[in-house]
Every structure is written in C-alpha cells, then in structure tokens.
C-alpha cells in the first residue's frame, strides 16, 4: 500500500525534533455485516476503511495522529505536526527496515469476498428457522453474521517492518422465549480467526439450537439466591471469571500506574496452588489469535500464573520499555485510529486433575453457572463482577432448577485463593473486550472450576 522508502521518510520526519521511537501503522479493512431480525434480513452493511496511525514516543509521552487516508501529502503533513510536539535534544535515527516474515500464518480457505451475499442470507435464514422450530414458546430470533478482512503494514524506527493480514468471521444468535408474562433470552456465538470455512467446524444451525435451548430452559427459572455460596463455574465462557478477577489486573499499564492489586507480586503466590493460567495468542484460528500484535511483535504463549505463583504480566512495547521487561505480543488496538495498549488475547485456566462430575457432587448447596453475559473489574481495588445468563441451583450434589440471571461479585486476590477444584474439560468462548474506549476480539477459556464461596446477586434473601 505504501513504498518502503516513503515509510522510512515518515519515520524520520517523526523523529526530526527528537524522540525515542516512531511508528507507522497502515490498515485496510473491509467489513460486512448482515442482520436477520423478526424473520427477515433487516440490514446488510458493508464498510471500507483505509488509514494510517502515526506514533511518536519521547520518554514517557506518546504523541499520536491518524488520518483516514494513505495519501502521501496528508501523511507527511501529519508527521510534521506530530514531530513539532516534541522538542528534545535526544536525536534518534531510524534503522534500516527489514521485513519480519516469520510468525503464525493462518490459511484462509474461503475469503469473505468470495461468498455471495445470497449465501450469507440463506445461512441466517436457516439459523432462524432452526431456532423457531425448537419450541412454540420462541417469539423472536435475531442473528448477526459479520466478517472482517484486514491488511496491515507496521514499521518502526527500530527497523521493524511487518506485512500482515487476517480474516475473521462472527455469527451470533439471540433467541427470545415467552411463556405467560415471563420473557427469557438465550445467546450463543461462533467466532474464529478464519474464513467462511468456519462453518465446517461448527454448523450455524447448532449455534441457533444452543441459543434456543438456553432461552427455553430459562423460562422455568426460579429466583436466584442472595448471599455467599459455593459456585461451580462451567467450562468455556466461565473463563470470564479469570479475565476479570485477574487478567485485566495483569495488564502492565495498570501495574505502572499503581492501579492494580497485582503490583509487586511477581514470583509470589497469588492464587490457589492448583491454578495455572495462560495468555496465548498463537492458538490456531482462535478468536483472540494473531500472527503479530498491533505493534508488530510476534504472538506468543505467556504463562501468567503457574501453580498459584504469579510469573508474568501482559505487555505492550511502551510498558515493556518502562518496566525493563520483554514484550509479550499483547500491544493491541481497535484500529489505526487508536493507540495500542496492553490487552489479553486468548486467556485461559489450564486443565486440573479433578473429575468434572466429582466437582458438582462435592457441593451440597450452591450454584452451577454455565453461560455468562460478560463482566467488569476495577483493577485498583480488584473488585469485579460477572453476570450469569444460564445458571442452576445445586442441591445435594445434583444440578437442579434453573435460576434467573444474577451477577456474581468478588475481589480478585480473594477469589483466586478460593479456587478449590479444577476439572479437565478445558474449552474456549469468543467475545469482545472493552478498555480505554477500544473494543477488541478476545477469547476466554477454562475447564469446570469450583469457587468455595462468592457473593451471588439474586433476589431470594
């Protein structure tokens, strides 16, 4: 998209009044989104985005500009304006750019541009039919199918040059069921870093049926209890507990600002001995995977906690420099319009040695939480919440009645030490994570786990 010579020129202009680091991030993104609602294709939208973000770091300060174009004149102009923000005696030169061709390559079999809109439509139509046929209580189905085809060039003054591309496909089905005056919802998604061959791994109809199944089961939900109880958290989306209770607090920007309860805890025990947790952006085709992060650092597997001991934080370039640590390939941004910040990729709890059935059997009175609606954390205090969208009472070691949606609330360091059992059924779930006004693709994962006590936000006092 841009000549190497021009890129180097921009990098040099950025550093012309001083500074430690300059970067060019060029992105071309084509997007499509088709939405089925109320039994028909209500909307089909396509987007074309092309632009460039320029970054200049001088000591602890970052200067950033972006333009919605890759027109030479506007880029040079933006670079000049940015460089004038700095007045420093430390002059750095741009090293010769050499392209890094390594890293994870994901093969795309069916590019979004090769798929006719008509085929996408029939996929949504059949998801709709499947869900509606599931039960007479289903009153509404919404389904979204979107794809993104991304190409980036990343170059910086350290001589790095990356040409990268990725394709992502996302399907989500929302089902609404009604019985009497009670309305319940069910949600399920399928999302991978791959082309339309995604539907070979899992059928769109299966996604629709799962969403319908949740809505119908929840029609008979009883009020959730209020109070502190043992909670068994199911595999896959259950991993949102680690994402909130710990993951965000390990992102190095929070550490630097003394806004994390996990500051100064490296090589210290912060969790139950049985807990090992990982952030791994190399997992093939997973929703949070990539070849390079958005600063050109190769993806990698980063062991965060090993047998309860904190091993590492999650870094981007700037935070790694500041803390004199190694980059972990977690500098991510929503688009060329945003600054990269340390973000999780695919973050999960490793398998333990407990049998899943035995975990449930061990609970006399408690909750089995199966599906979730996401969560939130205040990293400075460690207080976090996550919402159960499909949950059940456990009575005498047996899963019984479904419960209405409830939020679980706890404190990260406390809850990490309350993980009493970890099963063997590791699975993953895709989602979106919001931070600093940016939404990025993210995956959580875990096997079945048991928390001995956490506050359940029900209404049954």
């Amino acid at each position, binding site marked *: 998209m841009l000549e190497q010579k021009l890129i180097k020129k921009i990098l040099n202009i950025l550093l012309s009044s001083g500074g430690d680091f300059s970067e060019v991030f060029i992105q071309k993104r084509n997007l499509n989104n088709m939405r089925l609602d*109320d039994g*028909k*294709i*209500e909307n*089909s*939208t*396509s*987007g*074309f*985005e*092309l*632009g460039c973000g320029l970054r200049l770091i001088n000591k*602890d*300060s*970052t*200067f*950033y*500009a*972006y*333009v*919605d*174009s890759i027109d030479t004149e506007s880029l040079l102009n933006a670079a000049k304006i940015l460089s004038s923000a700095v007045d420093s005696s430390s002059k750095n030169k741009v090293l010769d750019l050499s392209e890094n061709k390594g890293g994870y390559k994901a093969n795309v079999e069916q590019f979004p541009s090769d798929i006719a*809109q008509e085929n*996408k439509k029939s996929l949504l139509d059949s998801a709709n039919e499947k869900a509606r046929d599931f039960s007479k209580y289903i*009153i*509404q189905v919404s389904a979204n199918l979107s794809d993104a085809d991304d190409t980036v060039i990343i170059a910086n003054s350290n001589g790095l040059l990356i040409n990268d591309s990725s394709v992502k496909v996302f399907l989500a089905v929302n089902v*609404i069921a*009604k019985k009497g005056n009670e*309305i319940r*919802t069910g949600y399920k998604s399928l999302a991978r870093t791959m082309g339309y061959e995604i539907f070979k791994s899992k059928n769109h109809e299966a996604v629709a049926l799962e969403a319908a199944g949740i809505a119908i089961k929840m029609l008979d939900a009883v009020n*959730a209890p*209020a*109070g*502190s109880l043992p909670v068994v958290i199911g595999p896959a989306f259950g991993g949102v507990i680690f994402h909130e209770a710990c993951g965000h607090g390990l992102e190095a920007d*929070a550490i630097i*600002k*003394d806004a994390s*309860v996990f500051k100064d805890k490296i090589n210290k025990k912060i969790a139950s001995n049985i807990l090992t947790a990982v952030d791994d952006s190399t997992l093939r085709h997973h929703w949070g995977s990539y070849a390079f992060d958005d600063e050109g650092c190769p993806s990698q597997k980063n062991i965060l906690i090993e047998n309860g001991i904190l091993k590492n934080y999650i870094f981007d370039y700037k935070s790694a420099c500041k803390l004199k640590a190694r980059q972990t390939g977690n500098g991510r941004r929503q688009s060329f319009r945003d*600054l990269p910040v340390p973000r999780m990729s695919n973050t999960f709890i490793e398998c333990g040695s407990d049998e899943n059935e035995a975990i449930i059997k061990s609970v006399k009175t408690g909750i089995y939480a199966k599906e979730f*609606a*996401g*969560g*939130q954390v205040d990293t*400075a*205090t460690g*207080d976090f*919440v996550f*919402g159960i*969208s499909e949950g059940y009472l456990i009575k005498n070691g047996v899963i019984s009645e479904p419960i209405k*949606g*409830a*939020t679980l*609330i*706890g404190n990260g360091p406390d809850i990490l030490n309350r993980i009493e059992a970890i099963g063997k059924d590791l699975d993953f779930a895709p989602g979106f994570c919001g931070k600093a006004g940016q939404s990025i693709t993210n995956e959580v994962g875990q096997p079945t786990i048991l928390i001995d006590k956490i*506050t*359940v*936000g*029900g*209404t049954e*006092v």
Partner: protein
Amino acid sequence: MEKIIDFCKHAFLKIKNKNVNEFEIYGSSAAHNEIEIYEEDIENLSFADTKGLGFRVFKDKRMGYAYTSNLSDSAIDSCIEKAIENSKVTNQEEFNYLPVKKEFMHKDTDFDRNVLYAPEFIDFTIEDKIKVSKELELSVKKRDKRIKGISNLIYEDTVSETVILNSLGLEDSYKASAAFLYISVISREGEDVSTGDYFGYERTPQKLNSDDIAENAVKRSTSLLGAKKVKSQVADLMLSPMVAIQFLGIIASVIMADSVQKGKSLLAGRIGEKIFSQNFNIVDDGTLPDGLASRPFDGEGVPKGRTSVFEKGVLKTYLHNSYSARKDKRLSTGNASRASYKSPPDIGISNFYLEPSDVNEGKILQKISNGFYVIDVIGLHSGVNPISGQISIGAKGIWIENGNLTYPVKEVTIATDLLRFCKNLAEVGSDLKFMPAGGYIGSPSMHIRDIAISGS
C-alpha cells in the same frame, strides 16, 4: 475539495444516475483531540481529522447500506456499488422509503442551531488543554492526603460537522463542538484502597469546572475507604444521580419502538398504562438548549423536538424513526439515531431525562430508616437484561441508618426487575444531573423501596 459537504455533493452526482429508487448520503467530518496526563506529564496526546460517508439506497422497497472512510473517487464508486448490492439481499417491505414531511411529529421547531457550536472553542489552544488537565491532577492531589494515584485523567474534544443529502431534495447540515474532562482517582488508607471518578462535559473547554470535577472525584473515592460487605437483606435504596442515570438508561432501552415491535420490550402494548406508581414525567428532548445531544434533525433528517414519554407515570409513546412510525401508523418522533456514518439509522434517545421534584434530596434521605445510598454501580452490560427485565449489578455506597449516612459498603449486589423498579420508585430529588450515556441522560436522586441486596 476539502469540506465534507463537497464530498457529499460530489457523491450525489455519482449515485444520481444509478438504478435505484431513492437514496440518502450521510457525511461527517471531525477534528478530534485527546490528552492523557499522568504524574504531571503528558502520557498521550493525539489528534485526528476524520471524514466519512454512508450511503443508504432503496430499490424496490429494499434497503442497502455501505460506508467508506476512504474518500477517493474509486473508493466512493465501489462503496455505492456495494450499497446497491446489499439492497438486493435485504427484505422487501412496504415501509422502506425516505421520510417525508407529513410523517414528522415535530414539524417546525424554532431550535437555534447556533447553540451547538461554541465559537470560543477555537481560542482554547493545545497548551490550554494540557494546562487545564494538569491543573485537575494537582487540584485532586492537594485536596486529600489519602489520594495516592490517578488511574485515568483524560481530556477530549471534538468539533464535528454533519451533513445529510437525499434524493427528495433534502440538504442540511450542522456543526457542533464538545469538550470532556474525566478523572479517576485512587485513595489509600492502610490496607484499604478505593477508587472514584467524575467528569465535566461542555460545549467548549472554557466552561469545564475542574474544581467541581476534582471535588466530586475525591469525595466519591475517599468516602468509600474502609468499605465492607453487609449481610443480605431487603432494604430501601437511595440512588445518587450518577447511578439513577444508569437505571434511566435501562428504561430508555425498552421504549424504542423497534424493540417493542419485535417483542423485545416489557412495555409492549402498554401505552396508556401507569408504569410508575408515582407521577413521574420522563421526556426526550432533542432541542434542549443545554443538552449535549441536541440536534436540529435526527439520523435521517427528521426534525428533533420534545417528546413526552411518561406523563404522571403513564406511558404516552414509544420513540420512533420513520420506519417504525409507519409500522405503528404514527408520526416519527425524530429519534432515528446513528452512532456514526458507519451505520444506517436505528432508534435512540437524545436528551432523555426524568423531571426533578422540588424536594431536597437530603430531606428524602432523612426519611429512610434502614437503606443503602448507592454511589457507584458496576457490571451494567453483563447484569442487566433489558428484554427479560432482570437486573442484578454490583454496587458500592454508604449505609443509611435512621436518616443518616453511616459506614461505607462494597462488594454487594442489588437485584430487581425493571417493572418492579418502576413501581417501587417512591420519590426523586431536585438535583437533576446529566451524563453522556448512549445519548445524554439526566436524572435527580432516586428513592426506591424494598430492593434485594446480596452480601455476606
């Protein structure tokens, strides 16, 4: 060709000759500035000039949409083609066409669009912006020695221009400015840590009141030091305006006509019913002079106005765009909304607020013998299901005993359902406060009876 209106007009000539029945071009351009300060130094400073066009086409009563941020000739050409291609796959519906005047609920508003843009905005330089941000940091730190850190201090401003053109001859535009200043502070005392945040949001940075922001952020943070869980119980809640606003946001989501029409709202079929037990008035006013969400026209060019949604607790209307209005045989309330040029018109609120009473909130609090004064909530996007109406969210605040604020409370949840919330809303204060929250939502303090609190 610099201005967004010129790009729109240029694209108009291109699309005019295409084989479509109707079309609309929505363009916007913005100059955006963002500054983050940490420890009296610039952490991030970013600026951008952006432009983009969105094309909505109607062909045989089908709608297609495409947008581009790349405004080169060839990109606009392919974008138009893509919009037309998209119109071939969507459903054919009799209600799919551009809005016409007889469908407007608010026909001739005398809204003065000059209020949207503050001319003094341009007098405030980058240096001034950095200065006001740094002063906020210092102001916070000197207020209380327990303030040990700042987790976020952000200044943001935008000057934007929005243009709409359609094949029925509509051509209109407006310019708007806004400045936002936000701080989140960390206070510590012994082992206790607490965070609190506050913001200012004005049409121009000169109006930002850093003292007010600092004072509120510090109070919200330090007043919760030493907070503990309470035991699970049913008690009254007093919601501070910042929290009440977020509950009002949930109510906003169930009065959108498209949600109602699709069976996704608990208020479907309940026009004319008394939803609140008390006589509250809730209004959506897109022309409020001080409203940061005020606009002369909505996302499809329909004039904005004042729509009374609840009158004396009774549901009077849903909010409509022209499509949903046709379906219900009503007029468009001018609530077609777009997050940006990247999406076709949906339905959304503008300045949406619950009218305050003349009762001082302190007086209301005095009447509560055992209750929870809620200062902040967490987990709204995961703990609220607007379709089923279930609400279960994390909360922190101060316990009320015999009309007095006593000890701080955290790590508890409050849970109810939306209809019960409306029924149990007993009284509101006089302290109306607005906050940007998917629109510009305003609420005074709220007193709600008998809500389940879960703790130890």
